[in-house]
C-alpha cells in the first residue's frame, strides 16, 4: 500500500489527529500526528487488517529546537509496506503515550529516547535510563545540553 493511501485511511478515522502528510524525494513519506493520539493511531496501524504494521523498525527521538520530535518507522510483514509516523511534543511538557504495549520492542527504544531526550512516555512500565548511568542528570542529546564538569569525581569533558 502506498503512503498516501495509508494517510487517507488514517485521515478518515482520526480526522484532526492527523496533521500533515508529506511525500517529497529523497525523504521518506511521513505522516505527522497529534502526540496525544499516538497510541490510538498506532493501535489502528497495527491491528487494522489492511495496514497490519506488526514490525516497529525504529523509534527515534529528535530535537527540533523548540520542541522534541518522535519518529516511528513502521513496516508490515504481511503487506510489505512502510510508513513513517512523526509527532512533536513541547520541550517543557514532553509527555506522550507509550506504544510499548503494542510493540514490545518500543520498550527499550522509548527508554533510550527518554534517556537521551527526556520524553515522558506515559504508560511505559519501566521508564528508567538505559544507556547512561541511572543517576545521570540532564538529557544529553538535546541541542541545548551542557555537559557537566564532573560525574562522581571523574572529569567528564575529554
Amino acid at each position, binding site marked *: 500500500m502506498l503512503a498516501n493511501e495509508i494517510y487517507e485511511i488514517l485521515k478518515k478515522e482520526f480526522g484532526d489527529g492527523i496533521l500533515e502528510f508529506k511525500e517529497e524525494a529523497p525523504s521518506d513519506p511521513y505522516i505527522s500526528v497529534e502526540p496525544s493520539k499516538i497510541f490510538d493511531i498506532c493501535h489502528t496501524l497495527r491491528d487494522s487488517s489492511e495496514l497490519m504494521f506488526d514490525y516497529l523498525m525504529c523509534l527515534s527521538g529528535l530535537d527540533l529546537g523548540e520542541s522534541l520530535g518522535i519518529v516511528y518507522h513502521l513496516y508490515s510483514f504481511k503487506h510489505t509496506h512502510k510508513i513513517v509516523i512523526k509527532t512533536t511534543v513541547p520541550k517543557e511538557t514532553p509527555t506522550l503515550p507509550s506504544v510499548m504495549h503494542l510493540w514490545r520492542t518500543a520498550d527499550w527504544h522509548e527508554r533510550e529516547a527518554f534517556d537521551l531526550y527526556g520524553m515522558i512516555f506515559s504508560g511505559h512500565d519501566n521508564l528508567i535510563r538505559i*544507556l547512561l548511568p541511572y543517576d545521570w542528570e540532564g538529557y544529553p542529546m538535546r541541542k541545548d545540553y551542557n555537559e557537566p564538569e564532573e560525574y562522581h569525581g571523574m572529569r567528564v569533558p575529554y
Partner: protein
Amino acid sequence: MNETKKIQLEYSQMESDRMRLNVGPQHPSTHGVLRLEVEIDGEIVTEVIPHIGYLHRCFEKHCEKMTYPQVIPYVDRLDYISAMNNEWPYVMAVEKLLEIKVPEKVEYIRVIMAELNRIANHQIAVATFGLDAGAFTPFLYFFRDREYILWIMEKCSGARLLFNYFWIGGLAHDVYPSFKQEVLDAIKQVRKTNAEVMNLLIYNKIFIDRTANIGILPADVAINYACSGPTLRGSGVKWDLRKDDTYSIYNRFDFNIPVGKGEVGQLGDCWDRNIVRMYEMEESCKIIEQAVAQMPDTGDVKEAIPAKLRPPKGAEIYQRAENPKGELGFYVVSNGTEKPDRIKARGTSFVNLSVLPVISKGYMFADLILILGSIDIVLGEVDR
C-alpha cells in the same frame, strides 16, 4: 536426553531462597561489557534484567559534530566484527539523500565485501557460541579461516577490523589484481571448515542436548520484539532484507534464505538460530561466487564520490540493510550543512538483546549463557 523442558516457574510453592547474581560486566561469556542481573533459584533462572550502557560512547552525539564522511569510522565501531556491513546502510542512506548513483563495479565489490564480512561475523558467532557450550577447538578452526578473509579485506582497505572502506559514492580503494582468485580460495576454505565443524560441533550429541529446546523464541514474539536476522529466521520466519526489501544489486543473485526448522528440538531454539548462521555462510559463499563471476574488471571506484556533501535541508531517510546480526538501520536527518542534524542507529544487537529476558526465564543458569550467545550480540552496537 530430550527431557529438557522449560521448567515452569510456578513449579513449586516451596519456600526457596533465591539468589541474585551479577553476571558481568566483566564476565567471560557476556560477549563484552554487558551486565545481567540474574535471579536464580538453585540453578534455575527466574529473572534476567539486562543493564547496558557500559560501552556507551555517545555515537549519536558525536555524529552531530562530524561531517558525513567523518561518521564512517564511528559507524565501523558499532558492530566492530562486521564493519563493512555497518558502513553500507549508512553510506546508502547518505547516497540516497544526495541522489548519487554508484558505479556498477563499486556495487559488486560492496556485495563481495559485505558477504565476506558476513561469513567472518558468523564464524565468530558460531565459534563463540561453541565456546559458551565449552567446545574450544572449533573456535580456533574458525579463527584460522577468518584470517584469510581478513587478509583480503586488509589488502583492499588497509585495515583488519575497522575498514572505513565504503565511502559515500564509492570505495576508499580499488581491489587488487589477484582479488577474485583469493576470494574464491577463501570461500573454499570456509566451506571445508564448515563441513568439519558440522561434524565436530553442530551435530555433536552433547551440543545438541545443550542447545536444542532451550531459549525458544516463537515467531510472533520475535516479530513483536522486532528481532531480525538469524534470531528471527531461527524462529522460522523467512525474512531477509536482501530479498524482501532488496537494496543494491541483490536481486541479481540467486540464493536461499535459510530458516530454522526445529530439526532437533522445538522451532526457534538456540540450535536453530545457530544452524541458520551455518547455512547462511554457505548462501554467502554462493552470492560471492556469482558476484565474482559477474563483476566488471574495469571501472573507477572513486568517480562518484562527491566533492561537496550537502544533502538538502530537512531531508531525512531511514535506510536499513541486512547486517549479519539482522536489520541495521540509520535514520539520517540533514539540516542543509555538511554535518548531519541527527543520526540514529537502530542497533541490531540492541533490539535483539531486548528479547533476552523473555526467552531465558525458566531455563538453567548454564543455558542463559547459551541463549545470550545464540542471539549473537556485540556490545559496541548495543551501547553505541
